[in-house]
């Protein structure tokens, strides 16, 4: 039995009266590639945002490597509005900012690409190394961290070679074609030295050929960096091709989980995607 890396426990995320994620439970083990799928508006990105600390859940907890990193219970206005289950089970409040979670070893990409626009490809990756540098502002300003800086630059060059962006390293990030920008986002996340990589629709807007390349690429980086990968995706070819397990969300609720083969034959999943025909 491999080690449990991420555990989402009874997480509910409610915005006012709207329940975006409803009592979500999922687990990801070391070395797995796990996909989270579901129709538009099912709450997938919201779930990501809870795990990465962008949103504080209304109720529930998130564990990373056996350590509780996020916990919350309905407070303030939400106390009376809370509609989910497991109310009263969580009493603590643990709400680290996203940067702290990233430092624990959990890095992400964004659905709508969020690169640093005025920076070169090289700098985009190098900046992500900032959270791993040990220098303080004084030692960095007066260049007492030369060794570390050189090591970081070398590592960034290596990363860029791996993702195939080395030849464009001095271009502006925004001048790259779409597919390469997606790759750059992945390279940037890798530079933060994560153990768990979260990919939010990495193949969005890609053509079938690019998607196939990306599928191979994700498998490759998983092996090379000994990563665990959690991804949201709509391209079923990609999802079915590389996932070890799949979770399916619909209207914030988990409706199925299992291997790709199990999911493909699950009636509830088919209904959720295609809609249930009326009896009439």
């Amino acid at each position: 039995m491999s080690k449990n890396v991420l555990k989402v426990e009874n997480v509910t995320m409610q915005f006012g009266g709207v329940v975006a994620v409803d009592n979500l439970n999922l687990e990801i083990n070391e070395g797995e590639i796990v996909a989270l799928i579901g129709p538009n508006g099912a709450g997938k990105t919201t779930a990501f945002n809870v795990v990465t600390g962008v949103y504080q859940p209304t109720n529930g907890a998130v564990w990373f490597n056996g350590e509780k990193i996020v916990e919350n219970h309905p407070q303030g206005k939400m106390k009376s509005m809370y509609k989910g289950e497991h109310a009263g089970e969580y009493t603590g409040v643990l709400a680290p900012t996203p940067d702290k979670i990233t430092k624990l070893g959990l890095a992400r990409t964004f659905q709508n690409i969020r690169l640093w626009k005025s920076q070169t490809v090289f700098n985009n990756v190098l900046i992500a190394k900032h959270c791993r540098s040990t220098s303080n502002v004084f030692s960095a300003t007066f260049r007492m961290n030369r060794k570390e800086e050189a090591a970081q630059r070398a590592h960034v060059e290596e990363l860029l070679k791996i993702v195939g962006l080395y030849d464009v390293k001095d271009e502006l990030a925004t001048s790259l074609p779409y597919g390469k920008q997606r790759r750059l986002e992945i390279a940037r996340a890798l530079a933060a030295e994560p153990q768990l990589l979260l990919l939010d629709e990495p193949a969005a807007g890609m053509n079938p050929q690019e998607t196939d390349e990306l599928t191979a690429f994700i498998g490759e980086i998983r092996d090379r960096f000994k990563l665990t990968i959690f991804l949201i995706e709509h391209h079923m070819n990609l999802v079915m091709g590389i996932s070890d397990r799949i979770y399916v969300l619909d209207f914030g609720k988990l409706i199925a989980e299992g291997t790709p083969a199990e999911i493909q034959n699950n009636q509830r999943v088919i209904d959720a995607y295609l809609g249930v025909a009326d009896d009439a």
Partner: protein
Amino acid sequence: MTMKKKKTIFTAVVLAVLLAACVAVDLTLPSYHIAVTVIKKATVYALVAVSMNLLNGFTGLFSLGQAGFMLLGAYAYGVLTIPVAKRASVYQYFDGGAIQFSLPEIFAGFLGDTVGSTVGMLLALLVGGLLAALMAYLIGLPVLRLKSDYLAIATLGFAEILRAFFQWNALGPITNGSNLLKSYPTFAHATPYVILAGLMIAVILLLITSTYGRAFRAIRDDEVAAEAMGINLARHKRMAFIISSFFAGIGGGMMAMYMGTIAAAPFKSTLTYEILLIVVIGGIGSITGSVLASFLYIFSSEWLLRGLDSGKFLGINSPIFKNGFRMVVLSVIIMCIVLFFRKGIMGDKELPDLLDRRSRKRKKEAAGK
């Protein structure tokens, strides 16, 4: 020769020439000459503009509190350096004031007159910078959580509060209330200003090109992405704010030196606006631009366009050339830059990048042939 080497040599040569020119001005012209005044004022503005650029241009925090931090630096400098013998006359309404020592005099006591008083003056500047930094830390706690324009107005408001405090009579034994601080030592020549401001700007430049500077720019470009990549927003914003204020404080101290007297009145929001506009003219995100724009701005307002105010300009006499006309012309030019040349003189390029453009052009031409 590699490009990098070329750039270093180019930069070094330009800087050396500028420094030599400044020394030459000092050696040949009397210290009251307009050229000396322009250099002094422009270097002070350059330092403050660069410090503002660090915050507004590189970190993307639109702060308008610069005048407040300069005020702190200026007062700290004045209060700590007025000779003890002259305190009775300066603080005539407050029984000679509460502070009865002077840093330059203390250091002159055991380091000799010239060295000692210089050390004391520099130390007073440093104290001013540290005070400004401390104040930035305190107000940064609540204010830095605010978004762009709210941050601007909150910092602007803070600067106004500070100004009110310095004019408060109850603080008179230290700040001299609404009266002037004067008779403190200053540098007569322009070179010390240039060297001092140059060193400070060099430090800011080193910061900007360090890993922290890159993190600041990441915050400017996309806060959400920066946070997701492990950059602690609160900590880095506070850091940028404190560092920028530190240098604004030192700039304020130098401004006090240049002006010869200190009152709270000149440190109004208009001063902040002026510096912000200089940053814009130079190019938001370019240190070279800020320095260049400071010199251009001060040179034209203090010297070149003087004639517009006194009735004769470029040999033309006209009744419209009367007091205030040069500032009108200058602000129209500024508006044109703001509206039509939004990148300013340098965009986000620096001095060494000037070589880049030319060599790239040359390459293109070569390829075209």
